[in-house]
């Protein structure tokens, strides 16, 4: 069975929408104004949303469906003077209707256009130094929480970037272990640089608490220490 994303299908049926959107987007990135608004409570934060329907599965799908997708994927390496968090944060600035109507690599393209402009790569041969990715090695030392501790997810309302999904805000879970140490994503998104590492915990939540009594699963997420508090 071969299906495609309904959003892509809808877009193909409505080429006028794309014509309206594209010139506005293009002129904005040419003018150097990278984003016209900030905010993170976006449509990208999809966990638990209703209404999307059956998961479309394409059997034996190719790595790239069209040649331009592979070229966009490969161009990611050109915008090295940034962080993965700023890349994600840029995608999160897409207007919701555009996000929903865009395929995966269209969202990449949208972000790479803006980050290339931000780094001056479309107008100059000068290239800002690439941002080095931190090592995945764990930092030594103990954190605020221990395995088995109950923790509450802070209400991460921000106009910046957060990796706390909405469906976990203010819920209480149990720390399972330290997952890794990583620079704070909000800071990395704002600055395009990686700061000092912070402990990240794997926290387990009761599915029924999150989504109602019919949900009998356990949900885990990896949350930064600064996103957690004692209940």
């Amino acid at each position: 069975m071969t299906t495609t994303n309904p959003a892509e299908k809808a877009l193909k049926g409505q080429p006028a929408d794309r014509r309206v959107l594209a010139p506005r987007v293009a002129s904005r990135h040419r003018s150097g104004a990278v984003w016209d608004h900030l905010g993170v409570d976006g449509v990208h934060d999809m966990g638990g949303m209703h209404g999307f329907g059956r998961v479309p599965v394409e059997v034996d799908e190719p790595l790239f469906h069209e040649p331009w997708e592979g070229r966009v994927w490969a161009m990611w390496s050109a915008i090295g003077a940034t962080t993965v968090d700023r890349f994600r944060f840029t995608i999160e600035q897409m207007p919701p209707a555009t996000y929903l109507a865009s395929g995966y690599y269209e969202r990449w393209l949208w972000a790479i256009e803006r980050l290339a402009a931000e780094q001056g790569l479309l107008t100059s041969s000068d290239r800002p130094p690439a941002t080095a990715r931190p090592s995945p090695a764990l930092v030594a030392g103990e954190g605020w929480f221990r395995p088995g501790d109950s923790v509450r997810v802070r209400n991460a309302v921000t106009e910046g970037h957060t990796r706390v999904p909405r469906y976990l805000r203010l819920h209480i879970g149990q720390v399972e272990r330290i997952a890794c140490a990583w620079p704070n994503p909000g800071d990395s998104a704002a600055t395009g640089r990686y700061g000092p590492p912070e402990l990240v915990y794997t926290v387990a939540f009761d599915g029924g608490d999150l989504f109602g009594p019919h949900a009998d699963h356990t949900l885990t997420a990896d949350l930064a220490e600064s996103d957690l508090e004692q209940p």
Partner: protein
Amino acid sequence: MTETTPAERAASLERELHEHGHVDPEAIDASIAEAESAEGNYPSPALGARVVARAWLDPQFRQGLLTNAVETLSEYVPQGVPISVLENTPKVHHVIVCTLCSCYPSGLLGNPPTWYKSFEYRSRVVREPRAVLAEFGLEIEPDVALRVHDSTAEQRYLVLPLRPAGTEGWDEGRLATVVTRNSMIGTGRPLAPGAGNGRQPDA
């Protein structure tokens, strides 16, 4: 001239980046070709299948995967981000997702399939995982604990599926032929012996 399609916008972006010396179109061709052929230890479902097959045969390797996957996998691929291996048992089934974007064990399995990045999967599998897995043909018994892992940080996950019955005495190469990509994400099981034709299924 107004650019309207993603293909035109991508071409325009590449042209401008190339004019200023920031990309080399031939290097882009080469990266795409390398990813599409995915030979040797290039990240791909086939590479993941080799790791799983070895874990089924080699208890020490399996233990290393479960306790220190980054180091244990370093002989296959350098891990730019931490990775952790989740072992399925007769009583626990793991499934992975990234609700916020598309985080996936790409360092081992390559780029994720489109369905993994779909709005449908991202929205629903955290809320109604049994229903979603049933759509994949995977019925999880009520007495099996289901654990859904939302990849919200830089930690990546690989599911180590249960070895299917009927594969006793198989070597690593033969075992790898039953390990599907979906079985390493948690939306499938390895193929039953005899069901496959030796081809690596993607879905």
